[in-house]
């Protein structure tokens, strides 16, 4: 699955996007655990509920199943306009 990062999250991941595929990741909650392990500096923001998640360009708050074609975005609260 394709993971995208925005704003200062990119400074932590050193990446704007990446492909992540693992048999351990079947849903969004499992992906979150995987990402936080990979980027420990994200953990404190995750714990403070500062991170936002979108699956296929839709905000997702609860857990949902994921498959290899999904695009998941991780970003901080927006500040547009």
């Amino acid at each position, binding site marked *: 699955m394709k993971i*995208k990062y*925005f*704003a*200062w999250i*990119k400074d932590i991941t050193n990446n704007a996007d990446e492909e992540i595929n693992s048999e351990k990741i079947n849903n969004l909650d499992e992906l979150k655990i995987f990402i936080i392990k990979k980027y420990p500096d994200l953990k404190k923001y995750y714990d403070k509920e500062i991170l936002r998640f*979108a699956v296929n*360009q*839709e*905000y997702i708050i609860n857990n949902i199943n994921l498959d290899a074609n999904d695009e998941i*975005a991780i*970003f*901080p*609260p*927006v*500040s*547009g*306009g």
Partner: protein
Amino acid sequence: MIKIQKDDFNSEEEINKIKSLHSNVGAITSFTGYVRNKNNNKKVNSINLDVYKEMAFNQFNKIISEAKLKWKLTDCLIIHRYGKLDVNSKIVLVSSFSEHRKDSFESCKFIMDYLKKDAPFWKNEFYDKKNEWLVNYG
């Protein structure tokens, strides 16, 4: 009409293009957002706006559809810039086209309120000696 672009734009021209399609439109309300020279008591030189473009398109389409359910709207225009924007640059234009002014005022405000709250754009403000990502609390 939705545009997400780096370049500046001419509001008169962009609005006229749409207005010229609709002779029944008597009312256009437009909101333009600009980069201010001060924010949270800090002197701002420029901003850099990051965007999740595909999601922003989807979001704008959805909010325009929702506005059309709530008000009698003939057309809608959203132009949102991204990238490096100096002080005094336009950031966003939202224009609502309708027969009567109440529909255009209320829908334009509705779209802007939504956009500030949910649209996937992130501001990185540049001051004289440093820069900072903004957090939107409103």
